[in-house]
Structures are given as structure tokens and as C-alpha cells.
């Protein structure tokens, strides 16, 4: 059952001109959250913007005893809502509704987990990495961005025993080019007998390419999709994704209830808005 809290902003750490990490006091939501779930954020009390915005739960914040105290969001300034959040100051409040959505299922050993993130698509993987660590699952993070300064929180993943494999389009950090380059190299270098599950989040063309690669190497792939979302609870039918059905034509399903995590083979990629 989701909870709506008027969450105090603990901190807002700017990472770059467009990215910030917003920490929110929300212990109930933090204690309920599962890997890859999201919250709906209302950054201002007024009617512009009117609707909430969906955000992956980035980190679960804990006190010294390890008890959940809140969550953080990885925010990229794009429109009105995300700009308000980028400029938000500690002590202020935002409406925070959640946790919502179908979570990632962390695999267990001997399977390995390979997370593939593009830019702000890193957001759902901290909670997944914590779940994998708890299972003792070997994990890698293939992480791509336009430039090196956009690659953030790599050390956090290292602390969670995740092996980072980086790529930037300008070659300023890691491999030059898209993250799918090192991913394909790793897929082809890994014996089929090793069980590997791929988890992807990022721009739609990236997720589509990752899904295709995973399928061609016979690996199961889960993708976390971001759609324009009105309510987050299944009421409005705006966040739909066209999915294949076992028998019959493809069918629109709500990404807030059936997702945001989907088995990549279900997605009709041509129908997905970029």
C-alpha cells in the first residue's frame, strides 16, 4: 500500500549543471521500498505543474543503526518539475507518494547480475545492487554517459561490491562509445553455461539495443521503462507500453502497475516513444 508523505528535503547535492541528488526524509516509504520501485513527487504545492512526476528511488537513507530514514532521488533537470527539484533547498518539503510499481527481482548465486545504465538510468540500480549484495550475487555495472563528468556514484557501486565498467561517448572516461560496446564484449567472452541476468535502464534506444544483445546471447533481460505518467496508481491509463501477448495482438499495459520493470522480450520496441 502506497503512502503519501510531506517529505522534508534533507539535502540537495548538485552533481553538475543538470544533475542533482535530492535526499528526502521519508522513513515509512524507505522501509517499504523494494529494488527498482518508484515514487511520485509533487515538487510544488500549486497547479503549475499540476501533476506529480515519477522518480526511481535512488538510495535508501539509513541512520547509524541501519534503520531506514528516507530516500534520495537522482534528478535531471528537464522540465518545470525537475527544475523545481534541482533548485529545491534543504528544509523545504515535497509531496512523496510511494513506493510504487513492480520491483526488480534480484537473482541469486550462481547467477550473475549485469546492470546496464545510461545517464540518469543509473537511478534504480543502487537499490538493486543492495539486494544483490544481500543475496551474495556477483554483479557488474555497465555504465555509459555522454562525458566523464556525467558518470556519478561509481564509488558507491564499488562499495556495494559491484564491478564498474564505464563508457563515455567522448572517451573522457572508460571505453569510447556507447555502453553496449563493452557489454557485447563481455557477453561474447562469457561461457553460455554461466547464468547471467541483464538489467537495463536508460534512454529507449540504449535499452532496445541492450535487449537485442541480451536476446542474441540467450540472456534474460529486465528493463525499467520511463513513460509519461499521470497518477502512478493505475487510474489514468496514460503510461501505457505496448507489450506482446502469448496469443493475439500486442496489448497496452500500464507501466505504473505492470512495470516499470518489464521482461524485455515483452516490449514492442517500435511502438515505444523515444
Amino acid at each position, binding site marked *: *500500500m*502506497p503512502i*503519501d508523505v510531506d517529505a522534508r528535503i534533507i539535502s540537495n547535492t548538485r552533481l553538475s549543471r543538470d544533475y542533482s541528488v535530492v535526499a528526502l526524509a521519508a522513513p515509512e516509504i524507505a522501509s517499504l521500498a523494494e529494488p527498482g520501485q518508484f515514487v511520485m513527487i*509533487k515538487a510544488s504545492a500549486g*497547479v*503549475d*505543474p*499540476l*501533476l*506529480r512526476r515519477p522518480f526511481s528511488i535512488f538510495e535508501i537513507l539509513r541512520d547509524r543503526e541501519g534503520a531506514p530514514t528516507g530516500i534520495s532521488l537522482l534528478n535531471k533537470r528537464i522540465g518545470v518539475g525537475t527544475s523545481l527539484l534541482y533548485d529545491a533547498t534543504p528544509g523545504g518539503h515535497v*509531496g512523496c*507518494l510511494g513506493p510504487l510499481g513492480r520491483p526488480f527481482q534480484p537473482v541469486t548465486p550462481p547467477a550473475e547480475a549485469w546492470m546496464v545504465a545510461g545517464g540518469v538510468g543509473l537511478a534504480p540500480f543502487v537499490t538493486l545492487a543492495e539486494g544483490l549484495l544481500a543475496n551474495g550475487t556477483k554483479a557488474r555495472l555497465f555504465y555509459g554517459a555522454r562525458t566523464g563528468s556525467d558518470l556519478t556514484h561509481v564509488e558507491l557501486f564499488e562499495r556495494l561490491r559491484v564491478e564498474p565498467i564505464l563508457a563515455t561517448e567522448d572517451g573522457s572516461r572508460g571505453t569510447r562509445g556507447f555502453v553496449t560496446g563493452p557489454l557485447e564484449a563481455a557477453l561474447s567472452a562469457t561461457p553460455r553455461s554461466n547464468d547471467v541476468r541483464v538489467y537495463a535502464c536508460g534512454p529507449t534506444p540504449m535499452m532496445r539495443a541492450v535487449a537485442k544483445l541480451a536476446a542474441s546471447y540467450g540472456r534474460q533481460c529486465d528493463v525499467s521503462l520511463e*513513460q*509519461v505518467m*499521470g*497518477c502512478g*496508481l*493505475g*487510474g*489514468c*491509463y*496514460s*503510461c*501505457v507500453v*505496448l507489450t506482446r501477448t502469448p496469443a493475439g495482438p500486442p*496489448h*497496452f499495459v500500464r507501466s505504473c*502497475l505492470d512495470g516499470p520493470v518489464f521482461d524485455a522480450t515483452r516490449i514492442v520496441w517500435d*511502438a515505444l*516513444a523515444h
Partner: protein
Amino acid sequence: MNLSVSIGSLTLVNPLIAASGCFGYGVEYADVVDLSTLGGVAVKGLFLAEREGHPPPRIVETPAGMLNAIGLQGIGVHRFVREKLPELRDRRAVVFVNICGTTIDEYCEIARILSDHEGVAAIELNISCPNIKQGGITFGCSLTGTHDVVSAVRKVTPLPVIPKLTPNVTDVASFARAAEDAGADAVSLVNTFLAMAIDVHTRRPKLTNIVGGLSGPAIRPIAIRMVYECRQAVKLPIIGMGGIATAEDVLEFMIAGATAVQIGTANFVDPFLWRKIIDGLHAYMTSHQIDTLATLTGSLDTSRQATAWISS
């Protein structure tokens, strides 16, 4: 304090009804609100058959509002009575089933099926969805069409029949009169305003469907005016809606002439708003020494205003 209101033979515990298209099939919200504490739940519009609706993007925000062009994606009436109605019944929801058709026969067929199942409180006729090419609004934009579909459905069901009117006409009051003449038990208004938004950088419409329906606080003053006009024109109970988000908004609609109200877009922003609004109504009744909320309906005092310009 008594918050109950009557729509024909139906008594609702309070005037708050979840608006069709904004509350799924009701069951999606059972975790956040006890459905039996609402005056009613108007479920997502149903055709006879399942429908996929429009490709996304289906919504876009505009100042103090949003446009939607969902295209009435839905599971069809047969799956509804099988998969959703039993749970709604168990949860003691007062279910308003919103129905759509491309022909009068389709409306009648759906109404007959619903009349055979326990747990349906009323039928809301969707003759006003602006987002589909066939059916619905073709009836809602013609006085004879409105009359014909209402009187046909009236003949095939003992359930209250409530046509939902479009504001995309010159004189909505004349449509309320057509509905009343045809035997409707109430009217609900307004559906969304046909509207459009464009991305100037790409010069593309922001919705796949190009046009969509505007809802939210932006439309509230127009909706209030339309409820007021209909109150002058008909004796039927009016279910008012359009941008309601607070108890004060509910009161405004009731004073303008609504017996009950529907809440849609605001539920997206705050799915917990129902309790807050009920508390707000109680507070108002206490401070204004009102025992029975229903006495507010149509209580607008225009004695000090010139009203000659109002068309009726």
C-alpha cells in the same frame, strides 16, 4: 451532520463520486481509499468489446490543467462484470458504470448486460468523450442524438440513466433539457474541453491524437457556469464536475446547482484527497450551522446581481 444526497432513487453517503476515466475500475484505488466511504465510483468507460485506445503520449500538462487522449482503452463490459464487479460489490462501492457505444444498439446491449448483474447502482452514458472518432460524442453534440440514445437506454434498464454531457456545444442547457425530456434520471457535466498543445521546437502536436480533452482547475469556472445554466433549465439532479480539488470547490458546484460532484484530475495529484474533502465539508457545515449538506444545492443567491444575460 448529514452529508448524504439523493440522485433519483439512489441515496449516496456523500456527494463525492470518483470521475470516470480517472479512477481505473475503482479496484486500483482500494488500497488508498475505502471505496464504501465515497458517494460513488464511476468506472472507466466501457464499450461492448475490449479496446486498446490511442498510442502514447496520451497526456500532456498545460497551465493548471492537463490534456488527455487516452482513447477509451478498456476491457469491455463482459470482462468488467466478470473480473471487476465482484470485487467492487465486496467492497460495497456504489458503482456508476460509464458506457460508450458507436450505435444506440450498442448502448442498449451494454445497459441490458449491466442490468442483469448485481452491484451496479447507475449507468452513466458517455456521449461526450472528445477523443474517439466513432460514437459517443456524435450523440452528445446533437439534441436529437442525445434524446434518442437516452430514451432508448431508458427503455431497456431499470437502473438510473445519467447522460454525461459535453461542454463542446453552444448551449449545454439545451442538451440537459433533451436528456430530461428523454427520461434521464440525472445529468453529469462537464466532460473535458476539446483542446490542443504544440511543441514549437518540433512543430508537432504534444499528443499522438493531435487533440485531447482539457481537465483540471483551468476549466473549473466554465464548468461552474455550465452547471448553473443547466440548473436554470432542468429539474433533474445534476452531477457537477470540472477541476474540483477541495471542499470549497465541491461547495461551489453544489451552490451553483449540483446535487453531487465528480472528482477526476485532482485524484491523480492526491489520491488521498477524499478524506480531506469530507473533513472540509464538515468544517464548513459547522461554521455555517448547516445540518444537511443537500440543502446547499442550487442555493446561489443572485438577488443582488443582474441575471438577464444568462441564456436559459
